[in-house]
């Protein structure tokens, strides 16, 4: 300020003082904002309480339990075949995928294994429900960011996959088709060709979403570098599925563990992304949907012949013991710890659902972000309320 005149110096000081006064007057008070329990961004009824300082989140706290339906207690009063009806509805977008780990756990206790054809059809339906699940996620993602069009695309193309599932199981998205020892029925006539056609369609859908959403400049500006979850934090919070893979951890139960399913017989790529931000999570999910359509195609090529049901007693009694089986569900790792006392129904079932762990990272990742980003981050974490509250 050496070459300024005295008047300029004085006006500068006066200006600074005015600014300081203004800052004191404008000092903001903290505000508590309640998002939910019924909010379009929460896929159901999650309630999130955030404490704001201006536009920034000071802390956030998810409040669960609005969709608690008491599955773990209900399984204790149901018989084994009845439990699949219940567990269908945990992650309601990928219903078939919920039945499989439970049935596998029961089969492990009874020491029976489904015939190969049943295993392959199970895997096909599993991947179909993954496609149905994630395709809706991709469409919904647009809605959260203010782009409504992708949702129409998603609903349009998801319908084809639901029709496929309906043609096999009779239910659009609560199939209840898995039985201990195999499946209820074989595939209907014409299923293979129709599925190939739909898989081609779904790949086109993925390309469309790629163009429309993931490649969109605004989308990238709002998701890149937002909500970064580093590798170690992701592991500490027990994230699984695409959320973990988007943080750069190469971990996929389909590849890494041996279960009597047909994933060993197909080759697929496990996509990871090093960034760990919202964009990475969406991108990994898109690639996964593509990969799932390829898995289904490969499975259709090598579908073995034979029965779809092993020999099981008419009244199913599971011998006493404990078993834990988990699989890579659309949302992440889902597993059942079944304790049997040799009765018609399980003594106790502990359900490990993916979303509960995935959402537990929310207070960590939401700290310090801006309010509009809260919605983006929640959408990209991708949870289903039934899967959180059970």
């Amino acid at each position, binding site marked *: 300020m050496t070459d300024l005149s005295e008047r300029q110096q004085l006006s500068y000081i006066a200006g600074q003082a005015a600014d300081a006064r203004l800052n004191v007057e404008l000092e903001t008070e903290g505000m508590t904002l309640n998002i939910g*329990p*019924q909010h379009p961004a929460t896929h*159901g*009824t999650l309630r999130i309480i955030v404490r704001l300082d201006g536009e920034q989140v000071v802390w956030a706290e998810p409040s669960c*339990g*609005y*969709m*608690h*339906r*008491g599955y773990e*207690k*209900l399984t204790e*009063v149901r018989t084994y075949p009845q439990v699949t*009806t*219940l567990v269908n*509805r945990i992650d*309601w*977008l990928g219903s078939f995928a919920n039945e499989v780990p439970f049935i596998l756990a029961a089969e492990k206790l009874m020491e029976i294994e489904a015939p190969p054809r049943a295993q392959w059809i199970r895997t096909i339906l599993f991947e179909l429900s993954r496609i149905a699940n994630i395709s*809706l996620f991709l469409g919904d993602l647009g809605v959260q960011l203010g782009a409504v069009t992708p*949702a*129409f695309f998603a*609903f*349009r193309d*998801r*319908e084809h996959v639901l029709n496929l599932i309906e043609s096999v199981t009779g239910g*659009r*998205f*609560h199939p209840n088709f898995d039985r201990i020892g195999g499946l209820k029925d074989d595939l209907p006539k014409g299923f293979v060709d129709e599925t190939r056609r739909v898989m081609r369609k779904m790949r086109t859908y993925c390309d469309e979403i790629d163009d429309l959403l993931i490649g969109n400049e605004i989308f990238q500006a709002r998701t890149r570098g937002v909500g970064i979850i580093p590798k170690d934090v992701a592991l500490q919070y027990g994230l699984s599925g695409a959320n973990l893979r988007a943080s750069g951890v190469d971990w996929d139960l389909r590849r890494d563990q041996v279960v009597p399913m047909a994933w060993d017989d197909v080759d697929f790529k496990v996509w990871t992304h090093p960034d760990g931000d919202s964009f990475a999570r969406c991108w990994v999910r898109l690639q996964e949907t593509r990969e799932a359509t390829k898995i289904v195609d490969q499975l259709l090529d090598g579908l073995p012949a034979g029965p779809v049901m092993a020999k099981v007693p008419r009244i199913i009694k599971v011998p006493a013991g404990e078993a834990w089986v988990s699989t890579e569900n659309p949302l992440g790792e889902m597993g059942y710890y079944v304790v049997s006392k040799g009765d018609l129904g399980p003594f106790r079932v502990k359900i490990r659902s993916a979303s509960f762990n995935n959402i537990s990272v929310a207070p960590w990742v939401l700290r310090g972000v801006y309010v509009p980003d809260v919605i983006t981050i929640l959408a990209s974490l991708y949870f289903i*309320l*039934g899967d959180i509250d059970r």
Partner: protein
Amino acid sequence: MGLVDRGRMPGAIEKLMNLGRSYSMWVYQWGLACCAIEMGAAFASPRYDVMRLGVIPLPASPRQADLVVVSGTVTDKMAPAVLRLYDQMPEPKYVISMGSCANCGGPYWDSYSVTKGVDQLIPVDIYVPGCPPRPEALLEGIVLLQQRIKHEDMAAKWRGETTEPLRREPIVVGGGNVA
């Protein structure tokens, strides 16, 4: 409308107004669980396209809505919010209960945390059974509700007869009783 206040209403005007009301319904989507996805398919997907029935599924708040679709499991923790939602809606208001859970508790009929039927909280006009009901079933429920609105007596309220939703006979989709 002095005529209405005195409990009389010219038939033609009433017809016209009922027609207008039944084809400009704003639906509030109270999606709670799995059924919300089927409701989304009915309301947002190009295949079912609810707007062709004269239903607008996107009001900003329940205060602008004529009809609420409660779809999914109402838990005891959620119940106060459902009640508050209903109280915020202006009269005349209609309720569609979608799915077995909202109708009667569905697969959770013996659960400790589920409200066995939303009709314990608010009066329901149309029950859409199913777990989940197909989107077509929800659309039929809406069409049945429109038929009922078309035959409503608008002046009944001023004659002292109650138009309370509780006194209206509920309709079950697929149950055979029409308007």
